[in-house]
């Protein structure tokens, strides 16, 4: 009798745990849908009153007279994201090749914690560092070098801070990708008389290329959504930037800066939610595309 009761208890316990696991999983998979639905619902108010085309391509942002042109924010976001990738992509690729192909063991032993710690530093700290180091550097050294007197709070400052933030993220992926290139390929290339550098350039990098491209894509999407660090150094001026020394106002900063006042004006509230929706969709697209590319490269 006791034995049967115990078995029943164990079975019941299994069912209980399994149900909880399933509920948790389904709930978490359900959340992105609720998230999109919520953001769409909130931004409907604005979309009903203004055509989407005008919202995206007008540069007239004056919420109080209910004109919402997102162009300055979109252009700022694009500038900062692309610029930050231009800075960090070569650094990451070169370091990844160095660490996987040339570096001695002790270098790796130092670099792993360095990457981990860099990845763990909160974005607000990057912002503080940007204000302490990058902004004065641009204002005192880099600006005068180009014959400009600038405050330092600029697209360039934002891009530079961002480029450092996405380095650990991209570098980790690149190291894994390059490590995953089969050794036989390299040996074949070397045995045919190619030098080590030719092998790296023409075999390793070429083989890992889809992965490299997609890790850059993931880095870009991370840069696109980063908020506080950029907000602190970018200047936040609503105008389409025409140079890297000018201040910008990216989308995440727009949302973060105005959350207090948005409640009083429903359209304004709706506009900020539309900004969040744009952010979400762009990042989602980049992510899905890049991850898909990685998956496809892995199965080949």
């Amino acid at each position: 009798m006791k034995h049967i009761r115990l078995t029943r208890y164990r079975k019941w316990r299994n069912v209980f745990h399994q149900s909880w696991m399933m509920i948790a999983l389904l709930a978490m998979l359900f959340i992105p849908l609720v998230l999109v639905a919520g953001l769409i619902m909130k931004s409907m108010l604005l979309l009903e009153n203004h055509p989407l085309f005008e919202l995206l391509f007008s540069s007239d942002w004056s919420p109080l007279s209910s004109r919402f042109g997102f162009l300055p924010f979109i252009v700022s976001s694009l500038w900062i994201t692309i610029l930050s990738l231009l800075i960090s992509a070569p650094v990451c690729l070169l370091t990844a090749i160095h660490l996987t192909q040339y570096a001695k063991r002790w270098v790796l032993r130092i670099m792993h914690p360095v990457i981990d710690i860099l990845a763990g530093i909160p974005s607000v700290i990057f912002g503080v560092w940007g204000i302490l180091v990058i902004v004065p550097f641009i204002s005192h050294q880099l600006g005068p070098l180009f014959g400009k007197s600038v405050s330092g709070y600029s697209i360039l400052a934002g891009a530079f801070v961002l480029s450092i933030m996405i380095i650990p993220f991209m570098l980790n992926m690149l190291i894994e990708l390059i490590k995953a290139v089969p050794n036989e390929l390299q040996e074949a290339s070397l045995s045919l008389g190619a030098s080590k550098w030719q092998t790296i350039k023409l075999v390793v990098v070429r083989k890992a290329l889809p992965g490299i491209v997609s890790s850059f894509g993931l880095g870009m999407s991370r840069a696109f959504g980063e908020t506080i660090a950029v907000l602190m150094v970018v200047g936040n001026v609503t105008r389409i930037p025409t140079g890297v020394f000018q201040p910008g106002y990216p989308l995440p900063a727009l949302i973060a800066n105005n959350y207090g006042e948005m409640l009083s004006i429903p359209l304004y509230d709706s506009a900020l939610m539309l900004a969040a929706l744009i952010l979400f969709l762009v990042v989602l697209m980049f992510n899905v595309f890049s991850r898909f590319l990685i998956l496809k490269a892995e199965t080949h």
Partner: protein
Amino acid sequence: MNTKTEEKFFRMLMFLSTIFIVGVLLLIVVSVLYKGLPSLSFTMLTSIPKGGFYFGEEGGILNAIIGSIYLSLGATFLAFIIGWPIALYMNVYLVKHHTLVNAIRFVFDVLWGVPSIVYGAFGFILMVFLGVRASLLAGIITVSLFIVPIMVRAIDESLKSVPRGLLESALSLGSTRSEISYRIFSREAFQGIITAILLSFGRAIGDAASVLFTTGYTDRIPTSLMEPSATLPLSIFFQLSSPIEAVQDRAYASATVLISMVLVISLLSRFIGNRRN
């Protein structure tokens, strides 16, 4: 340019970029500590803001330190009781359904990439919808939403390395899958789970964009889940936007506190992760 000099040139570039990354990390830590340590004092760590604190007078950031710890502990706990079972489910129950598990991994990987400000905006919509004010609870829920993907994928990675034979032999001896999950797989992946928890906790304590909308800010230490709460990243952010120099100095001191906490977490998870090897 022949191949030899080309290789030399690129090897130098590679060496420089590696040095660059190490240098930048050192520069970040050193510049924050250099600016922050002189203004850091014992009273700053142990008192809450008094009247006139934001004009450079008496007080400290205890409210933000405690608030951040409450928030991160709550969010990490919530994310753990959701994320841990999900990871186990993927590796013990769904072990035969490769495509499904890979699809789930794909979704969580993508969710990991969603910016925290989007979660913040979403949390805010939920709050308005439910009629709740900015509070510790709203913050905990929002932050846990965005650390669950990290938790799931990190635990999942360590469960993946548990040998399949262990599952098969336990099943053949009559264990139920829940026993295998919690008694065998979780024990095997114990260190990985601890690392995942620390990783999530570090994410939770450092994020500002998601708590900006949802947790609010107050000078008091919260006594219940329904009260708003200060957080360390936001206190750094707010103090730094002040034009008064004494307040800015305190922001750097607060940054020192935050960076020390995060470094300790990093080192701890490194230490635990290394013991596995």
